[in-house]
């Protein structure tokens, strides 16, 4: 073999070795043959059983023989056995397994057969099993088979305790979970890095709550102790992952409510425009109905949904699904606009961009008619429908009262800030994520939210200085906080559900007025690297994003009401997102990074080289972009019908 020194054995030694091997091979083959003969004649007898013992002793991975062995016991040897015989047989199984286990501490087959034996045994000694698995975990505290087996044993032990009425029994069901809890504490104190022990703890804590029927105050006290334990682990070694991950679990995370920001009807285009604060996919079309009463007798309206600026997500094998912030429904029938149009959105018809966000209730949004401005107030009825509970980590540790959650978050934020005093620049990202959680836990309009955004921005600035490899990530985090703060004036919490947001009255009024000067917003010089929630800007006519760090303008496709947009002095590489914008008449792209003709052409022309149907010619300023220096202005004549491209 490769590189090994080969010493050729003498012929005689060689011959003897071959003979010995041949004998072993024959013995093994005979065993297997005999076994097969047994199964052919369906004889589940002692001889067959002994064959399986011999085979498995040599090869415990021969999995079908385990199956055979189990069948022999159940259908053969123990079919008419009495309790004592069964007890003895299964006890012997455990002895057999113990011998095999020494060589194979991570074998699935062995653990499973052990469980099966104990399950079938008349009098299993769970206490002894607990000691055994304790030893296993001494040998290797991360053996997950061991931990899983431990959970199984303790659940059996506690069931047995609960069922027994043996007065001599010194243990009660409660103390088992507690003693398990203490076991994990021991393991953790031995070694804070024992992630398996922390993980086990996270499984035990909810059981502890349930068993002892703890009140909210009692739960809080236990959880506070947990936070203390984690705190000491974190202070001892701030670099250790285990404690931080457990901390993450303890803090928990609230489900984000997806908001339907608003909906309006544009009679000129015969379109309903529906806006979400999340980039959602549509699983089934939202129902559009017309009628004046609130019963279910409203008439369904025919049409088609598409997302504005929708993008296909992922290379899916079977289907591509479109995602978008803003969804447009084009009517395929004529309707009178005197009665109310309503869009009904069921939670199950939406795929959020990440599963921790949810539409909490069925929304029935009355669509405002923008030419009929007498009634701006958009009404939303929310039918409370049982939303399937999503699996959010540790709902058990989330306090029932919102204020308590805010208090908990503030306390933990202070713990980390104290750590920062001792070891600057640690754990800033955790701090930022806790601040985000706190923001969500507080109500949107309060000043607290703005102060928190400012704090987040300052920590992001710190991170940018420390960690040059991840600047983009931190700049994006910062952009999110800044964007939220700067657009807070456009939205408000909804009355039915303060955690969801809708366009506020001022925004709606400005939109209805159709005036550029009113429906405008400046986000100039805000260090924005991207636009997190373009739909918030949907109702604007004029937007100033100059002097930022945007590399892409594809978000513009959502902003179908824009007449003027200023993107001067950004980092934009190509024109994008404008093809479907009908009322856009001026776009400032001076001083960006557009360097080729294709980067312009591909954004302006359709696939068949025709242009979009703008109401007026779109004026585009391109001065100060790299492609100007190359003197290719002659090529721009292809756009003359639809675009007014200003190069100088």
């Amino acid at each position: 073999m490769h590189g090994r020194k080969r010493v050729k054995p003498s012929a005689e030694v060689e011959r003897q070795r071959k003979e010995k091997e041949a004998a072993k091979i024959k013995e093994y083959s005979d065993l297997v043959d005999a076994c097969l003969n047994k199964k052919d004649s369906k004889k589940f007898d002692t001889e067959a059983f002994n064959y399986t013992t011999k085979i498995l002793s040599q090869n415990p991975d021969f999995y079908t023989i385990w199956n055979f062995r189990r069948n022999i016991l159940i259908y053969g040897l123990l079919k008419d056995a009495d309790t004592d015989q069964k007890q003895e047989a299964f006890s012997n199984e455990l002895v057999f397994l113990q011998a095999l286990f020494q060589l194979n501490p991570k074998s699935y087959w062995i653990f499973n057969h052990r469980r099966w034996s104990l399950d079938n045994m008349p009098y299993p000694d769970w206490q002894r099993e607990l000691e055994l698995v304790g030893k296993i975990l001494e040998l290797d505290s991360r053996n997950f088979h061991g931990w899983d087996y431990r959970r199984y044993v303790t659940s059996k032990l506690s069931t047995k305790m609960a069922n027994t009425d043996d007065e001599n029994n010194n243990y009660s069901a409660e103390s088992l979970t507690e003693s398990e809890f203490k076991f994990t504490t021991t393991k953790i104190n031995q070694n804070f890095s024992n992630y398996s022990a922390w993980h086990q703890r996270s499984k035990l804590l909810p059981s502890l709550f349930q068993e002892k029927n703890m009140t909210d105050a009692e739960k809080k006290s236990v959880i506070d102790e947990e936070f203390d334990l984690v705190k000491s682990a974190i202070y001892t070694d701030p670099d250790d992952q285990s404690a931080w991950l457990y901390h993450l679990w303890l803090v928990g995370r609230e489900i984000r409510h997806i908001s339907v920001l608003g909906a309006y009807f544009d009679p000129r285009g015969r379109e309903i425009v529906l806006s979400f604060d999340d980039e959602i996919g549509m699983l089934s079309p939202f129902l559009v109905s017309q009628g004046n009463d609130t019963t279910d007798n409203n008439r369904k309206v025919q049409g088609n949904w598409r997302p504005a600026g929708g993008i296909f997500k992922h290379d899916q094998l079977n289907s591509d699904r479109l995602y978008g912030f803003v969804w447009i429904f084009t009517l395929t029938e004529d309707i009178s606009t005197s009665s109310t149009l309503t869009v009904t959105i069921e939670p199950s018809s939406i795929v959020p961009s990440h599963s921790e966000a949810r539409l909490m209730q069925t929304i029935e949004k009355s669509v405002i008619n923008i030419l009929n401005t007498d009634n701006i107030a958009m009404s939303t009825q929310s039918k409370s429908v049982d939303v399937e509970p999503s699996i959010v980590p540790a709902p058990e540790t989330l306090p029932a009262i919102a204020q308590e959650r805010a208090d908990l978050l503030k306390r933990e934020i202070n713990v980390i800030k104290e750590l920062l005093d001792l070891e600057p620049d640690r754990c800033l990202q955790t701090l930022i994520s806790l601040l985000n959680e706190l923001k969500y836990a507080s109500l949107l309009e309060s000043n607290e939210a703005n102060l928190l955004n400012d704090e987040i921005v300052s920590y992001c600035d710190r991170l940018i200085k420390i960690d040059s490899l991840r600047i983009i990530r931190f700049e994006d985090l910062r952009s999110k906080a800044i964007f939220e703060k700067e657009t807070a004036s456009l939205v408000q919490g909804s009355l039915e559900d303060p955690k969801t947001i809708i366009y506020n009255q001022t925004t709606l009024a400005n939109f209805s007025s159709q005036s550029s000067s009113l429906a405008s917003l400046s986000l100039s010089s805000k260090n924005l690297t991207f636009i997190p929630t373009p739909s918030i800007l949907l109702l604007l006519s004029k937007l100033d994003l100059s002097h930022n760090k945007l590399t892409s303008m594809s978000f513009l496709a959502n902003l179908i009401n824009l007449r003027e947009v200023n993107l001067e002095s950004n980092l934009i590489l190509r024109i994008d997102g404008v093809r479907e914008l009908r009322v856009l008449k001026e776009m400032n792209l001076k001083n960006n990074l557009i360097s080729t003709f294709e980067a312009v052409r591909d954004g302006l022309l359709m696939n068949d080289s025709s242009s979009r149907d703008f109401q007026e010619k779109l004026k585009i300023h391109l001065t100060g972009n790299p492609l100007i220096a190359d003197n290719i202005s002659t090529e721009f004549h292809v756009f003359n019908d639809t675009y007014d491209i200003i190069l100088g």
Partner: protein
Amino acid sequence: MATHPSPAEFTREKHVSYLKMCLELLPHEYESFDTNRMTFAYFCLSGLDLLDVLDSALTPERRRGWIDWIYAQQILPNMDNPADNEHLCGFRGSPFSGSRFDVNGVRDAQFPVDAANLAMTYTALCCLLLLKDDLSRVDRPAIINAMRYLQNEDGSFSQTYQSLESDIRFIYCACAISYILNDFSGFDTEKAVDYIKKSQTYDYGIAQSPDQESHGGSTYCAISALHLLNRIDEGLLSKDKTIFWCLSRQISGFQGRPNKPQDTCYSFWIGGALKLLNAFDLVDFDSNRAFLMTTQSKHGGFAKLPPELNKYSKWINYPADPLHTYMGIAALSLMRDPGFVDLDPALNISKRTIDRLINESVFWKK
């Protein structure tokens, strides 16, 4: 920019020799894994394929011979009474049961000694594809039908009939098999997705089963299964956080769980998961590659750990093994190193083999 290893660092020829050797002969320590022999065949064949030497390594006779050997592991329904053994159908790992050797497969398999195994069916199909077989002798209805017996109430799968263990690994196998055979009717996909959802932990990694710790191998199996079912968005609590969990497993190479040492194979399990989540470009390629270079054995092949740390290996004289060798090669292919064939992370075989599946195999070709 990423630096590519010079020939002195990646010992390509030694790995090729190692894989070829394993195809011919395995050390005696592997006897106990004979029930899994098909997986070793897969590691070797796919490894050679990714190194682009598979064609030149096999003569036509060899190829045909091996295709026949694989088909001889196929358990088919009993002609007269299919109900007798329909739950056992599919491929087994090797002739370990001692049944008659027949290149057309056997129809008289008797439970419990002779039964197919999901992981072996998956690797058998991959091997057939790698050997350029068109799958015309695969009994699709039998395999799909047998799957129904292997899925449990909670949505997980056992690997073989009446096996006591069931977890996410075999959900992945079922999905991969269904994809290759172009037929997802063999199991309840809703329940499977449900099981995956429940196996996610609070740190957004995914465990073998609900209650267990998140783990690199099961995270790969879950994400790949969801990808094949086209349900990644619904199946993951938070794609971003799962990506973050995966990326946090990188030390220089990757570890399988927090606070565990790095191990060659997780460069594939975690790397593959990240690739399917479109976040693989966030991995530090240089460090990953540097670690992989240290786990190469001087005799060829990759070990789990750098040889001086590999005291956990029971194969003292052969620290490398086919699984870690394949995983090391697959991990380098994910990074698109030159000289490696492009890998499809979902099915874990080369993209060109998948192309062949779609264009030439009987279950896909139009």
